[in-house]
């Protein structure tokens, strides 16, 4: 465990992906602490969520060699070095913090506190790491062992004769079998060492065919393991612990199928409503999908949870939070707004105005019209608002990939691939016409007086 790359997700201590369980085992702490830490980091600009997702994608589960990203991308992911993945995760953390840092309540505080606790409470007090290059400390294993035998000085008795024969056998065994060879059976990391059964050896025993007791002792000692002290040697195979696969119950599978069908129907219904002009925001798609999965999970709490529902819910939650944050920033953020104001035709930019992201507002209410003119404006994603002179005759040519057009408080069109022209009723019978060529890839075009 000298390298952080040796971390594996736990296959047994899992709540979502086993990441916290694996990290806790690596650090030797309670998994709950890791889970609380991830939750706190998630409140710190979403960094915890990014790190958790990265861990889930990049760290293999124990018993497996490939990570989730390998399963998703195949051999292509293996070509990328670890440094590239680390750089991607760091950039993702920075982006997440840039987007959600202002929205999350605690800012960078939890991240700093957790980093301090980790450094001062764990990392600084850790044991000196063992480098991979240095061999593990050698264990002194005696090749032979010295035994202190008690020598009986008196006349021999049956017991002392048996003890003497046994002593010779032990010495013979110690000379023949090295302890290191015996220790090689210690292949199983947690299993007991298996020692070889000693051979019967050359037992010197006084020969006395008339003594049945002596014959019995001789036969007893001639056996290699007369009383079964040594278990039979078995070949120890280091079996990999397979990752336990939880089998989904039938109700859980049915629930998953029904949930996915309902999810698909819900999204299709929203898309149809959007197509028919209801102007459904992107947030609503994620919200409706998340609601379906949330309700399915509540039912799954009773029927049994099928794999896939929880990750899908998490992905929808991330999408919902992201789109909500973007729409909120576009709506209220001053940094995402651009405002222009033109009072005469000469000020109008020949190529029009454009903005990639956010709100673009052009005030033409004070524009003096001496003849027909055309003004162009474009936003990639956001809201385009044009304020026209009160008495002007207006023609709106709009090109919108996805969004809506609102002219004088009337929704002219909404949906996808909107390309048309609209000329509202003019306030005056004659006069110059202000033609607006307005386009947006994704967003809303508003024309008002």
């Amino acid at each position, binding site marked *: 465990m000298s390298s952080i790359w040796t971390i594996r997700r736990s296959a047994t201590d899992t*709540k979502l992906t086993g990441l916290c369980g694996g990290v806790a085992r690596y650090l030797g702490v309670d998994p709950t602490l890791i889970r609380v830490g991830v939750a706190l980091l998630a409140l710190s600009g979403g960094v915890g969520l990014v790190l958790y997702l990265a861990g889930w994608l990049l760290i293999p589960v124990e018993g497996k060699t490939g990570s989730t990203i390998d399963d998703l991308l195949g051999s292509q992911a293996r070509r990328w070095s670890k440094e590239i993945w680390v750089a991607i995760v760091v950039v993702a953390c920075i982006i997440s913090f840039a987007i959600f840092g202002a929205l999350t309540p605690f800012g960078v505080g939890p991240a700093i506190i957790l980093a301090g606790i980790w450094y001062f409470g764990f990392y600084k007090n850790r044991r000196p790491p063992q480098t991979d290059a240095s061999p593990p400390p050698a264990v002194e294993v005696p090749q032979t062992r010295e035994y202190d035998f008690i020598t009986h000085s008196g006349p021999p008795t049956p017991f002392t004769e048996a003890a003497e024969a046994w002593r010779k056998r032990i010495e013979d065994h110690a000379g023949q079998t090295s302890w290191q060879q015996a220790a090689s059976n210690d292949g199983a990391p947690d299993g007991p060492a298996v020692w070889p059964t000693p051979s019967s050896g050359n037992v010197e025993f006084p020969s006395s065919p008339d003594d049945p007791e002596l014959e019995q002792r001789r036969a007893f000692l001639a056996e290699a393991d007369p009383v079964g002290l040594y278990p039979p040697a078995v070949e120890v195979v280091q079996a990999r612990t397979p990752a336990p696969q939880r089998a989904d119950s039938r109700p859980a599978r049915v629930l998953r199928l029904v949930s996915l069908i309902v999810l698909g129907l819900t999204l299709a219904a929203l898309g149809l409503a959007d197509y028919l002009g209801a102007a459904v925001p992107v*947030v609503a798609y994620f919200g409706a999908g998340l609601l379906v999965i949330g309700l399915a*999970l509540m039912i799954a709490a009773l029927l049994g949870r099928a794999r896939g529902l929880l990750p899908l819910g998490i992905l929808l939650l991330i999408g919902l939070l992201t789109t909500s944050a973007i729409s909120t920033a576009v709506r209220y953020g001053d940094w995402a707004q651009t405002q222009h104001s033109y009072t005469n035709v000469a000020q109008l930019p020949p190529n029009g105005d454009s903005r990639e992201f956010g709100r673009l507002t052009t005030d033409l209410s004070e524009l003096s019209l001496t003849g027909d003119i055309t003004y162009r404006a474009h936003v990639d994603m956001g809201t385009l608002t044009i304020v026209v002179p009160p008495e002007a005759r207006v023609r709106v040519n709009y090109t919108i990939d996805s969004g809506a057009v609102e002219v004088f408080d009337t929704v002219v069109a909404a949906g996808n691939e909107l390309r048309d022209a609209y000329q509202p009723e003019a306030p005056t019978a004659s006069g110059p016409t202000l033609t607006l060529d307005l386009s947006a890839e994704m967003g809303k075009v508003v024309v008002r007086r």
Partner: protein
Amino acid sequence: MRRVDVLALVLGVVFSAVAMLSLWLSLFGSINWEAVRIAAPLGLVSLGIVGLALSRNRN
């Protein structure tokens, strides 16, 4: 009796609450954030207590 999957229950409630909040906000446009500031912590604490109670070891 089958044990309740506490994780699925808790996350299902959280997902549903967040989804309903976002749907209401995107479709109707206004939310009483003062009420949310009170209800959200209370709800989360209650959910945590329910989760702890349901996941305690009954052996």
